[in-house]
């Protein structure tokens, strides 16, 4: 009997295997180095797999150096017939989650948060640029089949605690290297109460424990979500298998939390850090930039005014379109939020919301490393609900009152 990783990679944990991949993607950040390495080893790209180039890290370009590098990568992608998403299309992981990745696939991305896509029951993991260049040239790469830590979820989340609070809670319990070289599997009855957006958030944070992959079995929720995007799938049945370790989480016990700088695993209840003054709130990223996140933010700030600069970046063009269609975007703008084009926004500290010396940001992203969003800036990580309550006060605030219903 096998774990999901063992089943997809076709070998027991610990074995080294060479495998053809189903989908492989890069973004503007990692694609440039990939292209440089590829040119040194090959003159053609094999197919399959399906290859993607998606611009999300610095969009639109912030200066002429970036623009020139993007120009070169864009021309290459179009010439080679890659699936290409330009400035404004959105975050690579989100686009792959909008009906591309299917259960059981092997997916590699030149970005650490590729693990997000394990939410579909795929084996999805991040690689570097040179590994990706070799994949462009051969369609294959090597893996060591990971051992698996199971996170067994029971019960249901109690609002205003949400999937992000659960995600930060498990990172806090496991620590920043607690799952190094391993896969996380989210199992248990509690999974059925989580929507795909919640599962994407859970799997997104897997790499913050050092994990190679974070995975959920494809179930009726997965099937419904993909059917909405015109894709039919079979459900994956879990087998009895041997996990290296199993950790139980009662979802009813999860409370709103924040990760305090500069570590993702320094996780404390929001109530313990309330009142810390903020210079910026950022809602977006591959963790929490989906339509449900923007709608949650709008529900909190509608008809009110944010007290601190609040930056919102939709995860994709379709997320933005949905927010326009439903009026969520108008709610956010009228509440004083600054809207960025779909993409990673200021998460990686390159542009559009970089922090200054001594500034403090509450962000719905996944990393709060020292200086990440700007030299001398500090980052607290939270859910969208906590971000909304805090934006209205200009200080870290529990979402209990704002989302009391």
């Amino acid at each position, binding site marked *: 009997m096998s774990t999901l990783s063992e089943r997809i990679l076709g070998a027991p944990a610990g074995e*080294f295997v060479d495998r053809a991949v189903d989908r492989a993607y890069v973004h503007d*950040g*990692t694609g*440039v*180095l990939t292209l*440089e*390495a590829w040119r*040194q*080893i*090959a003159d053609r790209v094999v197919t399959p797999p399906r290859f993607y180039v998606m611009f999300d890290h*610095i969009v639109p370009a*912030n*200066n002429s*150096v*970036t623009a020139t*590098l993007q120009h070169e990568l864009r021309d290459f992608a179009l010439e080679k017939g890659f699936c290409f998403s330009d400035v404004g299309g959105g975050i690579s992981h989100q686009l792959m989650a909008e009906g591309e990745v299917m259960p059981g696939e092997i997916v590699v991305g*030149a*970005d*650490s948060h590729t693990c997000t896509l394990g939410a579909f029951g795929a084996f999805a993991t*991040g*690689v*570097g*640029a*040179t*590994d990706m*260049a*070799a994949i462009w*040239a051969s369609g294959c790469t*090597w893996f060591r089949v990971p051992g698996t830590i199971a996170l067994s979820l029971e019960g249901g989340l109690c609002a205003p605690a949400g999937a992000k609070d659960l995600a930060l809670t498990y990172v806090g319990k496991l620590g*920043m*290297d607690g799952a*190094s*070289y391993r896969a996380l599997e989210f199992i248990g009855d509690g999974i059925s109460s989580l929507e795909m957006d919640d599962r994407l958030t859970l799997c997104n944070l897997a790499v913050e424990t*050092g994990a*190679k992959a974070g995975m959920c079995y494809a179930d009726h929720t997965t099937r419904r979500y993909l059917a909405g995007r015109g894709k039919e799938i079979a459900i994956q049945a879990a087998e009895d298998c041997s996990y290296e370790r199993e950790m139980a989480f009662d979802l009813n016990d999860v409370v709103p939390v924040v990760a305090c700088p500069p*570590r993702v695993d320094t996780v404390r209840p929001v109530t313990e850090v309330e009142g810390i003054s903020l210079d910026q709130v950022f809602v977006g990223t591959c963790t929490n930039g989906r339509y449900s996140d923007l709608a949650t933010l709008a529900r909190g700030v509608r008809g009110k005014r944010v007290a601190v600069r609040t930056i919102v970046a939709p995860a994709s063009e379709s997320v933005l379109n949905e927010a326009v269609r439903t009026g969520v975007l108008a709610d956010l703008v009228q509440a004083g939020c600054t809207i960025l084009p779909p993409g990673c926004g200021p998460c*990686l*500290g*390159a542009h559009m919301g970089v922090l200054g010396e001594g500034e403090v940001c509450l962000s719905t992203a996944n*990393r709060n*490393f*020292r*200086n*990440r969003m700007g*030299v001398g800036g500090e980052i607290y990580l939270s859910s969208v609900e906590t971000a909304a309550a805090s934006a209205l006060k200009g200080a870290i605030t529990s979402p209990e009152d704002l989302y009391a219903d």
Partner: protein
Amino acid sequence: MRIEGRAVCLGEDIDTDLIIAGRYLRTKDRSVWAEHVMEDLDPDLAPRLRGAVIIAGKNFGCGSSREQAAVALKEAGVAGIIAPSFARIFFRNAINVGLPLMECEDGCRCTEGDRISADLESGMVHMNGKDYSIRLLSPRMIAILSAGGLVEFWRKKG
């Protein structure tokens, strides 16, 4: 494959943002990365990395997949890195750019400036009169490192 150098001691959980900050990524000029490597950890560190073997705490290279982190250390002249554990994407990237990594589970006691020698095939590190054993790399990883990285390995393979 033998590695020799002078010890530079660093802490645990050194992330790739600290190794090379996001603000320096948008270039193909490798000397920029070497110049700014570890700048946010210690602005005076970069010049001391030439000919150094870094002895670090657990989970070295955690965070993003940016290969520039491994390239920056190599371009700065780092001969190799010894740590109890490495983040997995950084591990692959380092091997692929020809930067030797050595997993030493017991953790090596580090004194700044100590002479270090290591042999990847036998899995032994010699430092300060003591021998430490490191986890053996696969023959393919050693072949990639000996070639100078995955690009050179591919070229030799034809």
